[in-house]
């Protein structure tokens, strides 16, 4: 269980890092926190020729808000995001981060690393999709911004090319009238989810809209923008939130059918995952709705 030998480069600028990656001609891998990559190397599931360590690139080590987004650089650790007060601008991140592995893994693991790794059961890709975050990808041809919902193309596959670096993730800052919900079921705290949901609801006067992202239920995070029955159910229930969860259950059955398309595995069948998804989704949507109404000033806190 030891990694095969590899060449190791730790450049100090972004152009150098990209050049190093490009020079390996596909044989190189970025290492950020290593919390997903090192186990893969240790089990020799991957044998990259070169690891490009981006941790000395100063410009990637920043977190802050600008232009309506919370921007998180590629080497910012998950635990730092969890503890930094600026993260309050994106409440969904704060709800999801404690579910990412354990404290000991979040000390080193990065937000961008988790997105780049694109595990279908991971929390942060779901958060990125639910909020449709902007992912800044920098390669030999310069930087481009990829919407999160286009970034994930399958299990552990993303829009990143072999010499691209995900330099930052930009999460939209929550506005007035927005509320969020997040939950998952795992066999043990810190394990990957059997099924999980991230929910965002926005209330603007009589108008209600919602986004619901499921993870651990397909080969990538799957998002539906709640329209039709779901939006109607949300807005119709008015003040009676206690009834909301059960009202939502019906319309969510169809959503679960559509989104949960993973085959069963040793831990859970597809049907069980659909039930989990439906239950979690109705609860979290209700909570998100309640929070949204509070944020909009429609209910007294």
């Amino acid at each position, binding site marked *: *269980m*030891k*990694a*095969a*030998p*590899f*060449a*190791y*480069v*730790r*450049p*100090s600028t972004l152009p150098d890092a990209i050049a190093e990656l490009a020079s390996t001609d596909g044989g190189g891998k970025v*290492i950020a926190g*290593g*919390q997903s990559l*090192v*186990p893969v*190397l*240790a*089990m020799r599931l991957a044998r990259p*020729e070169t*690891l490009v*360590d981006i*941790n*000395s690139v100063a410009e990637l080590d920043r977190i802050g808000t600008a232009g309506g987004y919370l921007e998180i650089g590629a080497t910012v650790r998950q*635990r730092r995001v969890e503890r930094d007060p600026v993260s309050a601008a994106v409440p969904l991140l704060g709800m999801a981060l404690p579910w990412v*592995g*354990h*404290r*000991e*893994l979040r*000390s*080193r693991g990065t937000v961008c690393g988790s997105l780049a790794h694109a595990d279908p059961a991971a929390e942060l890709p779901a958060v990125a999709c639910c909020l449709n975050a902007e992912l800044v990808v920098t390669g030999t041809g310069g930087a481009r911004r990829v919407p999160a919902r286009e970034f994930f193309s399958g299990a552990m596959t993303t829009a990143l090319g072999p010499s691209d670096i995900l330099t930052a993730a930009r999460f939209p800052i929550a506005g007035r009238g927005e509320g969020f919900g997040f939950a998952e079921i795992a066999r*043990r*705290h*810190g394990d990957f989810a059997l099924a999980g949901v991230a929910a965002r609801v926005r209330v603007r006067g009589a108008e209600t809209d919602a986004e619901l992202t499921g993870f651990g239920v397909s080969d990538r995070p799957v998002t539906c923008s709640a329209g039709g029955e779901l939006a109607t159910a949300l807005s119709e229930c008015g003040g009676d939130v206690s009834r909301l969860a059960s009202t939502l259950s019906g319309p969510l059955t169809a959503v679960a059918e559509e989104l949960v398309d993973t085959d069963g595995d040793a831990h859970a069948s597809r049907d069980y995952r659909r039930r989990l998804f439906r239950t979690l989704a109705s609860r979290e949507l209700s909570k998100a709705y309640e929070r949204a109404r509070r944020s909009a000033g429609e209910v007294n806190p």
Partner: protein
Amino acid sequence: MTTAPETTDPLAQKGKPRPIKAGVDDLVEVRMTVNGTPAVLSLPARVTLADALRDHLGLTGTHVGCEHGVCGMCTVLVDGQAARACLLFAVQLDGADIVTVEGLGRPDDLHPLQEAFGRNHALQCGFCTPGFLMSSYDLLSTKPEVTEDELPEELSGVICRCTGYRNILTAVRETHEAHPDGIPAPGNCAHRALVGRATGQGGGSTDGREAGEDTAAEGTRRIDIVLPDGDPTIAVDIETEIGVPVDAVWRVFDDVHLLARCLPGAELTEDLGEDHYGGRARVSVGPIKLSFKGVAHVVAHDRAGQRLRVLAQGQDTGGAQTQADIVLRTEATATGTAMRAEAKVYLTGRIAQFGRALAGDVSRRMFEQFADALREAATSGQAPSGPVKAPSALKLLFAPLIDRIRTALRRGRRTAR
């Protein structure tokens, strides 16, 4: 190999990994602080921090279970936060500050968490214990507001196969209650002086080369030996009878070269002036072979007061560091000379893993060999036939056993003294 600029102070770069480019077969230089002591390692990029700590620095308190981040046995503090040592390549930690379970407390002055684990029987086989200690240290120091209800979840990153969870939770809760505003810092992180820092090589260089090889050309520089604060790893206080007159013993003491040749496994290679000497020593115990290169300083050579004091400092290729403060006293007796040796030995790294008792036994055994050689040299006025052999594996493995039995038999008398 490395493109990094040379600096003499391993801490100068603290917190900032230096840019580097290493080929597949290259060794990469890493400077980090481990339990308060600067260490310079030179290793292949694929060596994990867990392996570097255990195999290169001899700090085997960090346990390795799954090697892919699941079990938590290897948890250590990296720049103050708990992290999996098996999920980090050591080369990534250039400039980092590492604390292992060895740094948490001293055997005679345990950290409150360690005390609580002991008190509550929170360990059965003890395999998970270092991981739990470091993880719970991180928890209580970074999240002092944690509630009792949250403890099971917060500590779920480490798995105990003996299922001692109840007691572990109790131990952590008790420590938390006793220190509501945050727990005391690790208690065994001291800056230990290292050999060769004056020559620009940090201590604990583990480049895999034989000691002496790299410095043969440049020679050893005279350095001031600064003993660490705190208690020694081993304290030896032994007396032995040498059947030769005091004068004859001191004739050996007067001739440093002759004296050195009486030391088991030792070899004097250089006279550095002002009572400083460079030399080598080899010790082997079972599979462990240590080859020290170091410096000795004769601080007191007092024939009238019958006292010889030597400070020594050595470094092994595997990163083990030894420092010793040795005082030899002689006293004329009816049958010859009573020689008493008091040695305080400070060990870090691999060698410290002998366990105190065994290391003490080894030192005692070496002292006996030294006394035998001294007797021979004092009698003949010449060096013992050939340098005294390095204590051999077999002898040392059995001798300590015999020693222990003897000690046990003598114990009554000793404590009476």
